């Protein structure tokens, strides 16, 4: 039964090759069928092993389990698998018409799914590296798929910033292998329980975290993200922002579970990095003028909030961070898909030039508004649940609480700015012709509302987290949200709408390619100083 884990990796890969080679015109139907089969396999696998994930461990090829290729699943990886299946469903439906003619696009899209599912299930460190690198290469091609100059340069920037980071991650793996003689995560977790705290071990942690930070777009090393996510096709941006960035966050969880035994995981360092990431993401988002750039910078800020949550182990904040990973995937995909439709109709990316969206396309507007309410943390929408859990965890901690509060105000302001596109008279006619796009957005919006109201069974079923203890329906939270939005409105009309000088300065600030790499080196040095020398 645990052989099914292999099917989850190879079915998309094989189907994608068939799609690429075939000349049949309706290959997108094959893609949907394979996706259906994959979902059924995942559900069967999950129901079979539910409650007993120890036995999912499988070593391929009959090698020694310490060095062979092995796959294993637990609650976390299973929930990520379902999240990625859902995201790919939405993207496949959204691009249903486009995939009709573009076989190579479908090839890369579905191949990426196999690679990503492999990354989630992989139980040996080297395969984590291989899958991550493969995902990087395929994402590069998908970013460059528009074949414009802009997309080529963003793709190359993405590749050249990410590959050295992956090699740094690999160096960390090498150090672990020569300390323990094993690369199997399950075996290593046991060995880490009674380990001597050596400099080599700490250095391996630092190197792995440095690589992961670039993948997850943390504070000083996020320069590639807005470039890549801003120019890719909207469906691809949705996938990148919703899910592929989460590969870094997922590995952050994994590596911290691993190093927990050695005693230096979950440090305050990553809380600080999370705060800086969130604040800088919000600051840049406030200054941007293009629809997709705003959304891309908000991915950075939301990853920062996730990091603030998961940087501590023993409180509920950790679960808040994990839940926020899921909620962010839903609403950010929704916003990117909606923005894609709007850009397609209006033929411009500038927020200032788009007006009257609500009159022109009311259905899309409603979905976008659901996404905006979710990301700003309105009650009864999913972003609210996870943000509140993190907020409860920080309640007694002075400035940390206020840092989150400021970030929330910034997010609210930024989406007040974006919501200006809804106002105004009807400017052009939009016949409701592409049903598939609306279906995909409707499913995502439905997911946002569903998780916002029925989060208790979801979080218990998947993670075994009990969230009833949080009082999330009182009058206070409504008031809190109202205050946040009110401050946001004032801030918008006094500073952002007038486009004051500091805002323009932030918008026009650039960091050159060389300095971006230098910043990565400085980040490694800072990590080393904190984890190796200071403790």
């Amino acid at each position, binding site marked *: 039964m645990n052989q099914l884990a292999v099917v989850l990796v190879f079915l998309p890969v094989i189907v994608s090759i068939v799609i690429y080679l075939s000349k049949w015109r309706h290959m997108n139907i094959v893609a949907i069928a394979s996706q259906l089969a994959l979902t059924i396999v995942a559900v069967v696998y999950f129901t079979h092993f539910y409650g007993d994930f120890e036995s999912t461990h499988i070593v391929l090829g009959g090698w020694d389990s310490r060095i062979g290729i092995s796959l294993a699943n637990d609650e976390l990886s299973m929930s990520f698998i379902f999240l990625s299946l859902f995201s790919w469903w939405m993207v496949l439906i959204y691009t249903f018409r486009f995939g009709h003619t573009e076989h190579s696009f479908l090839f890369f899209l579905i191949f990426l799914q196999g690679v990503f599912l492999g990354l989630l299930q992989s139980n040996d460190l080297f395969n984590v590296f291989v899958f991550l690198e493969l995902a990087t290469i395929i994402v590069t091609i998908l970013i460059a798929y528009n074949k414009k100059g802009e997309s080529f340069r963003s793709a190359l920037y993405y590749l*050249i910033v990410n590959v050295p980071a992956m090699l740094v991650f690999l160096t960390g793996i090498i150090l672990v*292998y020569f300390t323990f003689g094993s690369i199997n995560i399950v075996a290593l977790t046991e060995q880490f329980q009674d380990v001597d705290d050596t400099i080599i071990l700490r250095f391996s942690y630092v190197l792995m975290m440095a690589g992961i930070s670039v993948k997850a777009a943390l504070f000083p090393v996020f320069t590639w993200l807005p470039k890549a996510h801003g120019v890719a096709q909207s469906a691809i941006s949705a996938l990148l922002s919703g899910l592929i960035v989460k590969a870094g966050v997922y590995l952050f969880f994994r590596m911290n579970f691993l190093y927990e035994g050695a005693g230096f995981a979950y440090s305050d360092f990553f809380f600080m990095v999370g705060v800086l990431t969130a604040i800088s993401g919000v600051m840049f988002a406030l200054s941007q003028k293009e629809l997709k750039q705003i959304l891309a910078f908000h991915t950075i800020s939301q990853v920062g909030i996730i990091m603030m949550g998961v940087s501590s182990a023993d409180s509920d904040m950790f679960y808040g961070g994990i839940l926020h990973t899921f909620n962010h995937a839903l609403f950010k995909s929704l916003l990117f898909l909606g923005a894609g439709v709007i850009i397609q109709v209006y033929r411009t990316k500038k927020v200032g030039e788009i007006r009257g969206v609500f009159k022109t396309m009311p259905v899309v507007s409603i979905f976008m508004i659901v996404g905006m309410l979710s990301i700003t943390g309105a009650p009864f929408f999913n972003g609210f649940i996870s943000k509140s859990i993190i907020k409860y965890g920080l309640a007694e901690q002075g400035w940390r609480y206020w840092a989150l509060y400021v970030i929330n105000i910034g997010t609210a302001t930024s989406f007040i700015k974006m919501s200006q596109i809804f106002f105004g008279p009807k400017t052009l006619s939009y016949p409701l012709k592409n049903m598939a796009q609306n279906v995909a957005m409707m499913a995502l919006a439905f997911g946002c509302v569903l998780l916002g109201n029925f989060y208790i069974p979801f979080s218990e079923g998947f993670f075994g987290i009990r969230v009833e203890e949080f009082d999330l329906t009182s009058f206070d939270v409504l008031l809190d949200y109202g205050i946040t939005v009110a401050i946001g409105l004032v801030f918008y009309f006094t500073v952002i709408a007038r486009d004051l000088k500091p805002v323009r300065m932030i918008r026009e600030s650039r960091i050159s390619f060389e300095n971006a790499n230098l910043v990565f080196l400085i980040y490694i040095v800072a990590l080393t100083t904190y984890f190796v020398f200071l403790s």
Partner: protein
Amino acid sequence: MNPILTFLVVLIGFYGLSTSDNIIKSVFSVTIIESGVILLFLNLGNFQGGSIPILSEDLVSIVDPLPQALMITTIVIGSTVTALSLMLCIKIFHHYGSVKWKEVLARKDVKS
């Protein structure tokens, strides 16, 4: 070869990345970093007088075969990355007429 020397190779690659404005040179810097990492891994698994890890009758002292197996994979991935980035370099040169990051990133995209 000393592990310190391989570390120096990695540093040379990072030096290239963080000082050169040329796109082609940054691609090569990535390749250099990768060579350094591969050398480091092979080095740590190797020792003086060890024989090649192929099963035979007189098996005395062989080097650790796992690093070699893993590094083959890394080399394959690395060549893919190099090929892909050089292809993108050509495309960028066609679109912008330059291989300098500063010029390429500053340019507004021309509608074609």
